[in-house]
């Protein structure tokens, strides 16, 4: 019996920063098992990022109402003490952002940034051990010369390399949950393929659960075990990847799938 890592129950977000309250996510229910890759797909503005940020605990606390529950290993992240939440962030839950160009601190050496989660959550780990683990992860994400990358500043690396650095930084603390929001959107196709392959590999080896968010259905198809289709803040349909792609139930899903560009070689 698989262990449930994440359970989102009747989750909703309502913004109160304009004259009228604006519901951007509503009645979202799903769960994520250990070692599973869950793809969330949907058009722009469908609430994918908002859901991801909420799970990561990064939503602003002001001018915004949240409802429902986000259970991480059975505990509600939304009502949890901030201190407890902070101890999970980066250690058990980590995230890769869309823009590898801006997600790394330009003034900090890559090595420092990869080690950050360890430095914060595991001060008992010695500096040498930290470095050893950071280098090991840089190697895991297929850096040719981990030692050099460790000493480099972000601007010395290509976009693809930076995204791999982000993966290393996210994984160094051995999290249970990895959230990837459009993490390949800014990259070109060959680099995209490499990142996808890496994520699959890491998922296999480390048994980390992955929430993979994208508006690219073919990527979702390649990587996901299960898929959620979102539209206008609602879940339209969810199911196993084969079922969604081979036997979609909802009109909206059928439309999306019909719209995938077919590459004929």
């Amino acid at each position, binding site marked *: 019996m698989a262990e449930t890592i994440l359970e989102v129950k009747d989750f909703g977000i309502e913004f109160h920063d304009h004259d009228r309250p604006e519901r951007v996510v509503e009645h979202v229910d799903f769960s994520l098992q250990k070692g599973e890759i869950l793809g969330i797909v949907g058009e722009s503005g469908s609430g994918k990022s908002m859901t991801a940020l909420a799970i*990561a*605990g*990064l939503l602003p606390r002001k001018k915004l109402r949240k409802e429902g529950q986000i259970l991480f290993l059975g505990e509600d992240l939304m009502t949890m003490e901030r201190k407890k939440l*902070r*101890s*999970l*962030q*980066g*250690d058990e*839950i*980590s*995230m890769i*952002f*869309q*823009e590898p160009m*801006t*997600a*790394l*601190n*330009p*003034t*900090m050496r890559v090595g420092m940034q990869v080690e*950050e*989660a360890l430095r*914060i*959550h595991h001060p008992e780990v010695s500096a040498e051990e930290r470095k050893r683990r950071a280098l090991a992860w840089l190697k895991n994400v297929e850096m040719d010369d981990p030692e050099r990358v460790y000493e480099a500043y972000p601007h010395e690396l290509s976009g693809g390399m930076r995204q791999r650095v*982000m993966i290393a*930084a996210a994984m160094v603390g051995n999290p249970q949950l990895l959230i990837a929001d459009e993490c390949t959107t800014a990259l070109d196709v060959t680099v995209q393929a490499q990142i996808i392959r890496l994520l699959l590999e890491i998922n296999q080896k480390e048994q980390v659960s992955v929430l993979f968010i994208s508006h690219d259905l073919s990527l979702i198809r390649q990587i996901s075990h299960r898929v959620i289709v979102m539209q206008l803040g609602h879940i339209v349909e969810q199911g196993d990847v084969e079922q969604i792609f081979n036997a979609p139930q909802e009109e909206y899903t059928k439309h999306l799938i019909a719209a995938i560009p077919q590459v004929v070689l």
Partner: protein
Amino acid sequence: MKTIREWIKKHRNFNFFAGAGITSLILLVALVGIFYTPYASTEMNAAAKNAAPSLQHIMGCDNYGRDIFSRVMEGIRNTFFISLATVAIGTFAGILVGSVCGYFGGLPDDILMRVNDALFAFPSILLALVIISLLGTGTINVVLALGIAFIPSFARIVRSEYKKQVTLDYVQSARLMGAGHLRLIFVHILPNIVPVLLSSVMIGFNNAVLAEAGLSYLGIGVQPPEASLGRMLSEAQSYLFTAPWYALFPGLVIVLMVLGFALLAEGMTEE
């Protein structure tokens, strides 16, 4: 080391080198002035009253027959270190106030920034005058007064930089790694505002030079017989026609000091 060399390479431009040249020359004079001046700065010589520049007194003598070059050296030293201390106080406190306001926002930000705006509405020199009238004259008080008077402008710049930085992905990403507020403010964000900070420090230094000269000119800065560039200018006023060199050289040095720093600041921000 490597990064410093790269940095210099990137900023290799005329302004930078001209500014660095002038500034290091002045700095050198200030440093030498600590240990050695051709004459004692307070040594009077009745025979050399208002003497014109000559080989013995390359910048001439003032109305007491004191060697102007020696007094300029001492004046540069005083002005330089007072300005440095002033900027240090302004920057340090400005970073503290500005970063907290910019990072957290909200009510404390509103309150502090209203106070800041109110202070900012007065020219620094006026603010410094008020503070000196409370503290009394003297070098330390001048430094304190100018330093405090400089806080609002630094706080403002730092705050607006922090406001910009907190929204960036790298801050979110560090926050998600569990970094606390202090760590985010000082370890993650601060290095990213250094370039902006650096040029405002340079401009602030220039303003401090002028403000110190202004206060001394008004007679409430460095106290006689200590030499100060501003004070020399004010004393030289009565002798503009009998001894024009008396006003010329201190004035020229102030201009050079400000120019050197302005060029340096310009060159550093130029890509």
